[in-house]
C-alpha cells in the first residue's frame, strides 16, 4: 500500500514531505524530552526491523492472501518513535525493493505515520480513562489497530482518487471510495484482532514493551493501580 514514483504531482509530493517533516520534527522533539533519548534508539530500530519483516507474513483470506501492515501496533509499541521508524522503514522499502518511491516517501510516511501516532494516542488514553485491565487493554488495542490501518487505507485511496484525473463526478468518486473502504473491512478487522492478540501477548510476556514509551507520569499511574 505504497504510492510509487511518478503518479503524484510534484505539489502533492512536496506537501507529503512537509507533513512528514513536521510530524517527524515534533516526534523528535518529544523524544529529546525523555531523560535518555539515546536509550531507545537501538530498541526502536530493532523493533522496526521486526515490523518490516512481519509485513512479509501473509494471512490467508480465501480466495486471496493479505500481508500485514501493523502500523497501528507499531504506533502502540513505539510511541513517538513511530514516525522515525516508519520513515526509516519506508526509505529502505523504496530503495531496496522499489516499493513506494523516493519522491512519494513523504506522502507514504504521512499515510502510515499519522494513523500510527493516533493509535498511540488512543492507546495511551487508557491511562487517563483508567482502562488498564486485561480486557479493556485488549479492546483499546483492537480499536487502535483497526483505526491505524483503516485510516491509512482511507488516506491512501483518498490521495489517489483526488490526484489522478479521471472522468468521474463527485458522487461517483465518493461511491468508489465507499466501495473500496468496505472491501477493506475484513483486513481492518484482522489487523485489529492481531493488534489485540499481540498486545495481550506482550502484556503477559514483556509488559515493559508497552509501558516504556508511555508519556511521563502514565507509568506511575499504572504502577499505582498495581
Amino acid at each position, binding site marked *: 500500500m505504497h504510492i510509487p514514483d511518478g503518479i503524484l504531482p510534484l505539489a502533492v509530493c512536496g506537501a507529503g514531505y512537509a507533513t512528514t517533516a513536521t510530524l517527524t520534527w515534533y516526534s523528535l522533539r518529544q523524544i529529546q524530552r525523555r531523560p535518555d533519548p539515546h536509550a531507545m534508539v537501538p530498541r526502536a530500530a530493532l523493533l522496526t526491523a521486526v515490523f518490516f519483516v512481519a509485513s512479509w507474513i501473509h494471512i490467508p483470506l480465501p480466495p486471496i492472501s493479505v500481508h500485514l501492515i501493523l502500523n497501528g501496533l507499531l504506533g502502540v509499541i513505539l510511541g513517538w518513535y513511530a514516525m522515525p521508524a516508519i520513515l526509516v522503514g519506508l526509505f529502505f522499502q523504496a530503495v531496496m525493493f522499489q516499493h513506494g518511491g523516493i519522491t512519494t516517501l513523504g506522502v507514504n510516511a504521512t499515510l502510515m505515520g499519522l494513523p500510527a501516532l493516533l493509535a498511540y494516542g488512543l492507546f495511551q488514553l487508557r491511562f487517563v480513562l483508567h482502562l488498564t485491565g486485561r480486557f479493556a487493554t485488549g479492546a483499546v488495542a483492537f480499536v487502535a489497530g483497526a483505526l491505524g490501518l483503516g485510516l491509512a487505507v482511507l488516506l491512501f485511496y483518498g490521495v489517489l482518487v483526488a490526484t489522478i484525473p479521471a472522468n468521474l463526478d463527485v458522487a461517483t468518486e465518493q461511491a468508489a471510495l465507499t466501495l473500496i473502504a468496505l472491501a477493506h473491512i475484513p483486513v481492518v478487522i484482522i489487523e485489529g484482532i492481531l493488534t489485540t492478540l499481540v498486545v495481550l*501477548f506482550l502484556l*503477559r*510476556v*514483556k509488559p515493559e514493551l508497552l509501558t516504556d514509551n508511555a508519556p511521563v507520569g502514565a507509568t506511575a499511574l499504572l504502577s499505582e493501580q498495581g
Partner: protein
Amino acid sequence: MHPPALAVINLACGYANRPTVLQGVSLVVHPAERVGLIGPNGSGKTTLFLAICGILKPQAGTVALFGQPVVAGQFYPSVGMLFQNPDEQLFCPSVRDDIAFGVVNLGLAPAEVAARVAQAMEQTGVSHLADRVPHHLSGGEKRMVAIAGVIAMQPRLILYDEPDAYLDRRARRRLVQFLLTHPAASLIASHDLELIAEVCQRVVVLDEGRLVADGLPPDILSNAALMERHGLEVPSIYR
C-alpha cells in the same frame, strides 16, 4: 523387515546464494538407533536436517522417512526437529500452549492433546513449568521445553541440532539421560564429542557438504588423523 527410519540417497542441496552446501550425501538411520552427526561449523549439518524434514527442496537425490518418500513442502509428523536456539522454537505465551501447539496440529481431541502434553512434560521433567512464560525460563529449561514440544507429537525420528548448546553441566546431564532413554531414532548434531561418545551408537562425519566417515564412536572419535583432517579434536576420553 522394517524400513529404515531415515534413508537419504545421494542428496544434493543448497541455497540461492550458496548452491552446493550438500553434495552426494547418503545416510541410513535404523529405528531406535542414535546416530551422532559431527563436523566443523558450516559443514552442512543444519541444511541436511532441513532437507530431511522437507523444508528445503533437494537439487538431487531422495529422502525417505520410514519407507515414505519426503516431498518438500509437506508436513511429516513422523519426524521432529529440535532447533539449535530454543528461542526460535518457543513462541507461545505459556509453556503448556507451546508444547500443545504441534499436537493440536495433528488434529487430536482436546483430552488426547492434554494427555500428550502432560506426558511430554513428565518425560522431560518440565511439568512444574507448565504455566510459566517460555521467554522467562533459564537456558536449560527452555531446551527441555523445546524438546517436550517435539516429543509431544510422538515422532519416531528426532533430529537434534546442537541440543547441548547454551547448557550448563547439570542441564547437560539431564539431556544425556533423556537422550539415552527416549525410544525414538535420533540424529544428533553436536560439537560436544563427549556427548556423542556417551549417547550415540554410531557416528558420521560431515565436512564441506560430504559424508566422509561412518562408523562406531570409538573407531571414529579416536582416529586422530581423521579428526584432525576435518577440523575436529579427539575427545579426552579417547586420548
